[in-house]
C-alpha cells in the first residue's frame, strides 16, 4: 500500500510538472500575453495559434477548373500544375501563409475539380481576384483540315459567295494541339532587329521542345496559331522544323503590353482555364472581435464548470478541475504544434470539449459515491469507482468520437475545424479525466473512514 502510494505521488508530481511545462509553453508562445514578445528566443516565436480566415480576416476563393480539354488520366497532373502556378503567383505578391489546395471531384462531392485559395490578410476581394490573375492561357493550334474542306465546299454550294453568316457556322479554322503554356520554360521580351517591334520570345521545356518540333515538322508551309486566353494573337506560317524549342510571338504589342505578357507568362501560364465560383471576404475587425468573444466564452465556460465540480463533488471535483486545467494546456499546445487552423466553429468545438471532458469524471465520481454508500472504505470505493465506470465512459465517448470523424471526413473547412477540435478534445479528455484524476486521487492517499473524509468525497447536498 505504501509503495503503491509513493509510486502515485511521484507520478502525480511528474504530471504536475509536465502540465505546468506545457502551460508555460502555451503562455510563452502567445504574443498577446508577453510584454516583450519580440525580444525572446526564436523558438517561442515559431508557435502562434493559426487562425482561420474568419478570425484573422482575409479572402477565401473557390475556382472551378475547366478540364474538358484534358485527358482523364492527366487530370491530377494538370490540377497539381495549376495549384503550383497559382501558389507562385500568390507568393509573388507577398501574401503571408497562403493556402492553395486542390479539391478533386469524387463520388461524394459530386462537383468538378476545384481549386481553393485562402489569402489571410487580403480583405480587398478585388485585389485578391486580380492577384490570381487575368489568367493567360497559352495554346498552340494547328490548321483544321476539316475546316479547309468545308470552307471549300461552302464556297461551291453558295456559288462562289460566302456570306459571313455561313462562316460563323463553320468549324473553327484551327484545332488544339497538345502544346500549351504548361510546357513553357520561360518567356523573354525581345525586339525585332529590323522593325524595332516588341516580341515575346518563348523557350519550351523538354517535353514542349519535342512537341513543338513535331508540330513544326508536320505543318511546314501551313499556319500555326498562337492563342492567348482563347483569342488568336498571331498565326505565323511555319517555314521549317524548329528543333530547339524556341518560338516567338509577334502581335502588334506595345512595349508595355509585351512586358506585361512576359511577366504573366513567367509567373506561370495556367495549364487549364479557371472560373471563379464563390468568394468570401472577412474584414480584420470582425475576426478580431470574434476571437475576443471566443476567448471570453471559453474562460467563463471553464469557470462555470469548475464551480460546479467543486460545489457538487467537493474534493474529487477539485482534483478533476486540476485535471481539466491540464487538459486545456495539452489541447492548446496541440493546437499550436500540429498546427490546427482555428475558426469560430473550431473554438466552439473546443469550448464544448471542456464540458465533455469532465463527463468521465462525473461518471466516476457518481460510482465512487455509490460504492461509499454501500459501505466500502474510501480507498476501495475509488478503485471500484474507476473500474466500474469504464464501460459507460467508453460507450459515451465512442458515439461523440464517431460523429467527429464523420464530420471531419465530409466537411468543408468550417466543419472540419469543429470536428477536429471536438475529436481531439474527446481523446485527450480520456487521458486527463481518467488517468490524471486517478493518479491524483491515489496519490492523496485517503484510507480512513472519518467524517471529514466522507464529507469530502460526498456530493451534492448530501452530508
Amino acid at each position, binding site marked *: 500500500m505504501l509503495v503503491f502510494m509513493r509510486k502515485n505521488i511521484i507520478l502525480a508530481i511528474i504530471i504536475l510538472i509536465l502540465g505546468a511545462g506545457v502551460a508555460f509553453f502555451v503562455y510563452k508562445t502567445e504574443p498577446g500575453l508577453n510584454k516583450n514578445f519580440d525580444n525572446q528566443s526564436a523558438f517561442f516565436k515559431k508557435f502562434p495559434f493559426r487562425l482561420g480566415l474568419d478570425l484573422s480576416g482575409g479572402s477565401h476563393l473557390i475556382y472551378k477548373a475547366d478540364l474538358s480539354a484534358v485527358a482523364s488520366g492527366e487530370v491530377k497532373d494538370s490540377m497539381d500544375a495549376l495549384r503550383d502556378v497559382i501558389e507562385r503567383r500568390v507568393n509573388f505578391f507577398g501574401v503571408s501563409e497562403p493556402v492553395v489546395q486542390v479539391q478533386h471531384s469524387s463520388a461524394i462531392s459530386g462537383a468538378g475539380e476545384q481549386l481553393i485559395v485562402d489569402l489571410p490578410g487580403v480583405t480587398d476581394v478585388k485585389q485578391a481576384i486580380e492577384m490570381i490573375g487575368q489568367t493567360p492561357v497559352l495554346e498552340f493550334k494547328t490548321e483544321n483540315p476539316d475546316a479547309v474542306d468545308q470552307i471549300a465546299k461552302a464556297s461551291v454550294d453558295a456559288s462562289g459567295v460566302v456570306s459571313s453568316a455561313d462562316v460563323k457556322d463553320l468549324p473553327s479554322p484551327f484545332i488544339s494541339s497538345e502544346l500549351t503554356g504548361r510546357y513553357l520554360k520561360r518567356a523573354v521580351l525581345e525586339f525585332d532587329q529590323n522593325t524595332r517591334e516588341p516580341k515575346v520570345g518563348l523557350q519550351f521545356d523538354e517535353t514542349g521542345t519535342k512537341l513543338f518540333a513535331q508540330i513544326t515538322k508536320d505543318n511546314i508551309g501551313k499556319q500555326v496559331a498562337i492563342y492567348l486566353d482563347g483569342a488568336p494573337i498571331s498565326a505565323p506560317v511555319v517555314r521549317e522544323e524548329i528543333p530547339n524549342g524556341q518560338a516567338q510571338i509577334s502581335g502588334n504589342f506595345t512595349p508595355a503590353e509585351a512586358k506585361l505578357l512576359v511577366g504573366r507568362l513567367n509567373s506561370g501560364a495556367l495549364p487549364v482555364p479557371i472560373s471563379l465560383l464563390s468568394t468570401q471576404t472577412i*474584414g480584420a*475587425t470582425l475576426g478580431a472581435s470574434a476571437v475576443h468573444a471566443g476567448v471570453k*466564452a471559453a474562460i467563463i465556460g471553464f469557470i*462555470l464548470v469548475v464551480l460546479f465540480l467543486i460545489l457538487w463533488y467537493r474534493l474529487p471535483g477539485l482534483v478533476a478541475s486540476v485535471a481539466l486545467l491540464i487538459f486545456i494546456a495539452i489541447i492548446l499546445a496541440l493546437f499550436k504544434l500540429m498546427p490546427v487552423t482555428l475558426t469560430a*466553429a473550431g473554438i466552439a468545438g473546443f469550448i464544448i470539449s471542456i464540458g465533455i471532458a469532465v463527463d468521465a469524471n462525473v461518471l466516476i465520481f457518481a460510482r465512487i459515491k455509490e460504492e461509499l454508500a454501500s459501505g466500502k472504505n474510501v480507498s476501495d470505493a475509488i478503485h471500484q469507482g474507476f473500474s466500474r465506470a469504464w464501460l459507460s465512459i467508453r460507450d459515451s465517448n465512442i458515439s461523440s468520437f464517431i460523429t467527429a470523424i*464523420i*464530420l471531419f471526413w465530409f466537411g468543408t473547412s468550417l466543419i472540419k475545424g469543429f470536428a477536429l477540435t471536438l475529436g481531439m478534445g474527446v481523446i485527450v479528455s480520456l487521458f486527463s479525466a481518467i488517468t490524471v484524476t486517478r493518479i491524483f486521487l491515489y496519490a492523496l492517499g485517503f484510507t480512513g473512514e472519518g467524517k471529514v473524509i466522507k464529507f469530502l468525497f460526498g456530493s451534492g447536498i448530501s452530508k
Partner: protein
Amino acid sequence: MFIIKHKKIFIGISATLVLISLISLFTFGLHVGIDFKGGALVEVVYNDTRPAQTDLKQPIEDLGFGSVLVQPTGDLGYIIKTKDLTDAEHKSLLEILAQGNPDALTELSFNSIGPSVGHELARKAILAIILVVLVIICFIAFAFRKVSRPVSSWKYGLIAITALMHDVIIPVGIFVALSRFYGAELDTLFVVAILTILGLSVSDTIVIFDRIRENLRSQSSAGKFNFSEIVGKSLEQSFVRSISTALTVILVLLALFFFGPSTTRYFALMMTTGMFFGTYSSIFLASPLLVLAEEWQNKE
C-alpha cells in the same frame, strides 16, 4: 418511481413538443442560407451615420440583381443579401452603398457562393446526416446485442432511436421559431449542431440503458423479477449523474451563447436545447417507453 408511475404524462409531453415542432416546421419552414442555395451576403458599417433603408433599397433594386434584402445590423451597419455576385457586380453594389463617398463606410465581410457550390454542400450535408444516423444505429445494435429478456434488444434500439429523433426534432422546432422571428438561416452550422446533438445525446440514453441491463443481470440471478421496478431503480441511480454530465456541457454552451462570437450564437442555442432535451428524453422518455413496451408485450 415517480417517473415510471406517471410515464404516460411524460411521454405525452414529449409527443406534444415533437408534434408542435413538426407542425411549425412544415407550416413555416426554414430560411435556407446562402451556404446551401448560393447567393451573396455583404455586411457594411458606416463611419458616422447610415443612410435610411428606403434610400438604399430602390437604387440597389435598380442594379437588377433580382430580389434584394437590406437588413439593418447594429447601430451603423447593413446586411445586404442578393443572388451570387461577380466581381464587377460587387463593385457596383458597393458604389451604391457608398452614395458617392467611398470613405463613409467599411465593408466588414463579403460572401458570394455560386449555386453549384451550394448544391454540392447540401449534398454533402445530407450524406453526412445519413451516415451519422446509420453509424449510430449500428452502434446501438452493437451496444444491446446481448440484452434479450424480458424486452428484446431490437426494442431497446428502436426506443433509443425514437428518443434520438425527439432530441433532434425539438431543437429544429426552436430553430423554426428563430428563423421566423430573428431571421436565422439553415446553414452549415445548423447541420453541424444536429449531427453533434445526435452524437452526444445517444450516449446518455445508452448509459441509462446500460444501468438497466446491469441491474437486470443481478436481479434475475437473485430470482425476483419486476421489470418496471428495475427500470425505476436504475433511473433513481442514474438520473443525477445523467443531469450532471449534461449540465457541464450546457454550462459551457450557455457561456458560448451569451459571450461567444455572433457567428456561433444560434449554433450554441440549438446545441443547448439539444443537450437539454437529450437528457430529458433519456430520463423521461426512453425509460418510460421501455416499461410501456414491456407492458404491451405482456398483454399479448
